């Protein structure tokens, strides 16, 4: 049995506040996904495809209209720290310092721990994302990359069974993004968490993921077939480009995304297309 399983999930959003199906917009249609323990899965799709809806469903922040989501064979019940999420816009609490933001998560998942252990654990996660020097700062004093590091530290501090990442690096400049991708890869290798990451950056997905799924554009988006990335971790950006597997995965992924948009297979032109989809 898969560690995290999504079975036949449909999700529509109501339009104009009416409940009848005629005025509802289908966002996700018949989503099926099986993720193994310690697997790093990326879901790639363009903006508006319903990626955030999908990860919010896994997080339990919204409920599917049909279908079910199982973690270790048990249906999920609302949100919980065992499915720790790193939000796209960081969602750090602005009235708390870096330390307090992470400490809040430690305190929530391990309330029985002594204060000294809680502080040590908080420090551990802050150091893991290289923010030891900024732990007393408020979010408004941090750069985008630093904020995202705090958000990752908080996500890890929930000690989740599955770490959910919702386009964590999309708001960052290319250089910062590269650094953070490498840090995330290093942390993932160190912690061996199961990770589901949403992204619109195919190269990012290939650098990090074991399996890549494409979410074809909505309304009523479905998941495409998985593309496996067999290159062993840790991967380096420069080495990836030379691998035949990289070209193959890139071509497959791009073609699914492009054909989903235009309704026809355009593989040859798609492969040379931009990898960053917006």
């Amino acid at each position, binding site marked *: 049995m898969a560690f995290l399983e999504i079975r036949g999930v449909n999700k529509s959003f109501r339009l104009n506040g009416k409940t009848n199906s005629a005025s509802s917009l289908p966002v996700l249609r018949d989503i099926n996904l099986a993720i193994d323990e310690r697997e790093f899965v990326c879901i790639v799709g363009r903006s508006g495809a319903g990626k955030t809806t999908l990860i919010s469903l896994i*997080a339990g*922040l919204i409920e599917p209209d049909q279908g079910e989501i199982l973690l270790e064979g048990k249906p999920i019940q609302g949100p919980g720290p065992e499915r720790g999420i790193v939000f796209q*816009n960081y969602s750090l*609490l602005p009235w*708390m310092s870096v330390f307090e933001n992470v400490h809040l998560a430690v305190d929530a998942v391990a309330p029985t721990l002594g204060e000294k252990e809680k502080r040590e654990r908080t420090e551990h996660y802050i150091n893991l994302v290289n923010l030891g020097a900024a732990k007393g700062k408020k979010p408004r004093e941090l750069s985008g990359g630093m904020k995202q590091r705090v958000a990752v530290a908080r996500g890890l501090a929930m000690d989740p069974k599955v770490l959910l990442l919702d386009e964590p690096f999309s708001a960052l400049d290319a250089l910062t993004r590269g650094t953070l991708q490498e840090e995330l890869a290093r942390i993932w290798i160190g912690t061996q968490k199961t990770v589901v990451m949403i992204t619109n950056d195919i190269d990012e997905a290939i650098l990090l993921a074991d399996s890549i799924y494409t979410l074809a554009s909505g309304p009523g988006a479905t998941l495409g077939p998985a593309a496996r990335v067999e290159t062993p971790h840790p991967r380096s950006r420069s080495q990836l480009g030379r691998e035949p597997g990289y070209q193959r995965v890139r071509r497959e992924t791009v073609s699914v995304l492009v054909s989903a948009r235009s309704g026809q297979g355009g593989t040859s032109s798609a492969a040379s297309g931009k990898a960053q989809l917006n």
Partner: protein
Amino acid sequence: MTRRIDFATVVLPVLGLGVMLLIWTILSTTVARDLPSPMKTWEESKQYVLNPFFKDVEMNQGIGRFAFLSLIRVAKGFLLAIVIGTPLGFLLGLSVFFYRTFDPVIQILRPISPLAWLPLGLVIFRQSEPAAIFTIAICAMWPTVINTAVGVRSISPEYLNVGKVLKLSRMKTLQRIIIPGSLPYVFTGYRLSLGLAWLVIVASEMLTGAPGVGGFLWQEYNSLVYSHILLSIITIGLIGFGLDRFMGLVEQRFKTA
């Protein structure tokens, strides 16, 4: 650069005050003959200003002493207003049920003038001092109530989602997310409430005859010493301005995001 700032922050405001004094002088020498001119006002008021803390009898004291008495009264009314108004605002913001039940009542009570509340206060308390404080509190409460409720409701769902994912208890969510998240709005409410409380003090002192700036104003009107009306008005304005600035600074401290 410094000179420019001086021009904008010193010269222009002084110019504005000068224009005001000029209009006052012209009015007092032309259409409103009973209105004391600025010079006359100063001449007749200077003993109250230069010696602000003298006390002759209860209704003949330095303007500083009157202002202090009024401020004490306002402080009591204001504290009562925020002690009642803040929790009320949180309840309105947190509970749709509570909001639907009490919002209409609040919307009806809110526009009622202090002049209408005061007699009711006198009926209830049978003494002028608690009646005045009751009036200040009930008139000054609404901005705190409404701003607090708006603050709670405008907390970003992102922050609430953090609480949900962490499965924080209702109490923890309130302590760690809802209260700190709404503080900027709460303090805006406090600033507006304090302004209203100061506005109400004059009316309540005039009607109860309590010693204070408003009481002094009304007494001097009845004694036909019109320059002291102007002295009181200027004092009320300056103190109100000072209070607003002070609360503005406090408010600034709680601006988070």
